[in-house]
């Protein structure tokens, strides 16, 4: 039951942030997802990131689509307004919300079915438009709520629970995001919070569309041998050798990447995947380089995680539309209604 309140018992020495809030103030309802779901780790990472960044919870708006991932905004930031919209359409609703009030932080949460299948159009166009948001894809490569169908990010050759092999080419949402103008692009793993939390922080502090693809194993339907998105599989190939520090978007990006470690795994069907992190030679300010890198490594069967691209000087949709600084939803009648006199002049021009 999601509406059971969490116990309010707190240790007296529970750490507080600069606002005087404890981590508990950033939590939400109790998760209804399966025990061990990667999505819950992402929720925890969001809580930690917001706590660390001293964000006032009520200044965040959480939006999602439909699916397991899209349920999660109920499970963090309980003092924030949230909107669980329709399947695949979170980006447009978030866009409208962001236009109405430019002063809030917008956090979109979606999944691989929600963003790569039914919602791929909205995903793509929100990136193009430069909406100021953090967009987290909780990517488990499977439809959970409908019990285990392949999604559009399921790797070719990956097996479902019954042993059926996926023959369709997967969609790489981050490759799309790079091409379509996202200005902060990252990939991570729900089981690697040291990597994930700084990436979320960087995204929340970024202006423009910040998107993070988080590989997030489904313990119930996609955590078996033969799946390329199982905990074992991903953990085994996701050595935390390349921890990112929180990156302020306007800072020179000078995180010291340790030499990328490459884990080579032979899958059940003989295909090989390498999950590796970024190496020293990687330039996260080079969009074309990032696209090339993704493609090159993908061709080699590797998964690249980390901060793939950041453009710290990106402009957002509000800048493109030249909207006033004051949020549109706070403009009063006097700022909006031209009044009767203006109509008299207009009438005269229509005779």
């Amino acid at each position, binding site marked *: 039951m*999601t*509406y059971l309140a969490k116990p309010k018992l707190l240790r007296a020495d529970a750490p507080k942030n600069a606002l005087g809030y404890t981590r508990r103030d950033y939590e939400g*309802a109790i998760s209804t997802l399966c025990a061990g779901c990667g999505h819950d780790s992402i929720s925890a990472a969001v809580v930690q990131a917001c706590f660390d960044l001293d964000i*006032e*919870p*009520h*200044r965040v*708006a959480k*939006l999602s689509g439909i699916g397991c991932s899209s349920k999660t*905004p*109920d499970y963090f930031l*309980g*003092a*924030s*307004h*949230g*909107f*669980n*919209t*329709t399947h695949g*359409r979170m*980006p*447009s*609703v*978030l*866009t*409208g*919300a*962001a*236009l*109405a*009030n430019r*002063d*809030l932080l917008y956090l979109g949460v979606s999944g691989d079915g929600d963003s790569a299948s039914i919602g791929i*159009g*909205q995903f793509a*166009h929100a990136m193009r*438009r430069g909406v100021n948001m953090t967009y987290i894809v909780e990517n488990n490569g499977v439809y959970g709520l409908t019990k285990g169908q392949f999604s559009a990010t399921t790797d070719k050759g990956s097996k479902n629970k019954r042993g059926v092999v996926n023959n369709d080419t997967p969609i790489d949402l981050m490759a799309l995001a790079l091409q379509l103008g996202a200005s902060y692009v990252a990939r991570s793993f729900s089981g690697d919070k040291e990597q994930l939390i700084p990436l979320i922080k960087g995204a929340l502090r970024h202006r423009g569309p910040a998107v993070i693809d988080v590989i997030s194993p489904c313990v119930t339907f996609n955590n078996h041998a033969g799946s390329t998105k199982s905990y074992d599989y991903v953990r085994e190939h996701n050595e935390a050798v390349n921890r990112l520090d929180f990156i302020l978007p306007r800072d020179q990006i000078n995180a010291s990447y340790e030499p990328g470690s490459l884990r080579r795994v032979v899958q059940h069907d003989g295909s090989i995947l390498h999950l590796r992190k970024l190496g020293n030679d990687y330039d996260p300010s080079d969009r074309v380089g990032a696209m090339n890198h993704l493609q090159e490594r993908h061709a080699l069967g590797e998964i690249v995680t980390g901060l793939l691209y950041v453009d710290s000087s990106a402009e957002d*949709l*509000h800048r493109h*539309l*030249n*909207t*006033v600084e004051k949020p*549109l*939803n706070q*403009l009063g*009648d006097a*700022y*909006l*209604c*031209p*009044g*009767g006199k*203006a*109509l008299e002049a*207009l*009438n005269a021009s*229509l*005779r």
Partner: protein
Amino acid sequence: MKPIQSSNDFVIKFANVNGSGSASANELFARAIMRMGVPVAPRNIFPSYILGMPTWYEMRVSAAGWLGRRGGCDLMVAMNPQTWDRDIAEIEAGGYLVYDSTKTLPRSRFRDDITVLGIPLTEICNREYTDPRQRQLFKNIMYVGALAALLGMDFAVVEKLIADQYRGKDKLIGANVNALKLGYDYAKANFSCPIGLRVERANGVGDKIFINGNDACGLGAVYGGATVAGWYPITPSTSVIEAFSSYCRKYRTDPDNGMARYAIVQTEDELASIGVVIGAAWNGARSFTATSGPGISLMQEFFGLAYFAEVPVVVFNVQRGGPSTGMPTRTQQSDLIACAYASHGDTKHVLLFPEDPYECFTLGAQAFDLADRLQTPVFVLLDLDIGMNDRLCHPFDWDDQRRYDRGKVMSAEELEAGKNFGRYLDVDGDGIPWRTIPGTHPTKGAFFSRGTTRNAYAKYSEAGTDYVYNMERLRRKFETAKKLVPAPVLQRASQPTRFGAIYYGSTSPAMAEAYALLEAQGVHVDTLRVRGFPFADEVIDFINDHDYVFVVEQNESGQMRMLLMTEGEVDPKRLIRVLHYDGTPITARFISGRIADALAEHKVTPIRKQVAS
């Protein structure tokens, strides 16, 4: 055949080629007639193409002020060889034909029962102008000049209109007036002017303004306080957003810094456009979209979300011919059902039916108050006929004392004071709950909006009791809406009658004229113009007060009649269909003819039976 003789009461039709620049010349001519105080109702009949296809501009001149389409054509200006034969055939016996006589046509291509007035427009243009575009454009102005002579109009009026139109561009004024004069002089020199049709000065226009419904909707959205618009181009609604954009630039640009007090996003499709609107409205900004039938179909799922999550959005639906792609450039009123019950599950939506551009403005602005008050989607259902055609209407007005009704929005102060907040709790008995805008208070008033079922405090719940509570509240809210939508407009017949007629939207001018025609024939019918859905009690009372009610509408299935039957639980036999749906605007002749026929079929004496009121 005697040539038609008529002053200030006839129909002129221009047959042109799309993209030839004829539209502005034709409009200039219509405005010139109005400047002489004579009401004109022009209608564009255009194809779903950009260039080179046939297009017509039909103009009804009516001293009596009848603005509905009349049908027929007394004077044809045939400028399109492609459609020559059908254009000639359409002229009423005794009518007139004006055409470009540069190229000689065989006698067989004309008719004996009309007056043929050939003007060598191309020849004159080729003699006067060297630039090909000028030759094309001034040909149009030239026939306007010729018509001014033929109809005995005051040349100075047209000349002044051109001067007003091109104020500041003196070179254009001189060139246009010159072309106008060439046509005028040719007609004077070669024909006996005026012909049987004449425009004479009158006082029928008054302070009326001349504008189309789409522009008026865009203006209504500005006055209604809309700040966010999400949209996708679709005929015939596109110009609603173009007008909103242009009025916003004019009225909503911050004078201090030139920044925009509005945001308009052209999205990738209609799903995204209504998504943007819902997101903005959820976040406390007044927002809207404009679309047409196919867009309404695409938005269905989102309408259900806005209905169930109770988000106040406004949708202008400029209806065109359906189903499917249908007749994109023709008019119909065929989206009532698609909008009234949009989306799956048990949904009902508020609809408004403006009759003309004035109401597009007033109801358009009011839609935003209604949406906020009721926290639900509000559809403004106009159609191509009023949306895309300039129409004489009451001048726009605005009460400066009026303040936007933002509905039940709980403030930070109220939350701080401990006011009980349940997002879906009916505290006032009217079915309308309170809402909070995101970001209002650090610890109170946050809620999670969703399309799934929930309890009164917005917590996820599949409990039957919670579901039923919510649905019953939504019903109560819809009952409340009956009292808030604009009231119907009643016109009693000159004598008591047991017959009534219900109509709405763009049918209005044709119905008013039909009423007069029927009255003149001794046929008495009370009429009621429905302006909103859910139906106010007066609508159902009107039906109950009459034995039979004609339901006049522009669709094939009688959609208003269906709504009346369903919502008013009215006996279908008492609701007689009067349906016009060929894509052209309904006419008074059609309505009065159908009603008279139906009365004859019912074998009833249409008059002098008293009814208790």
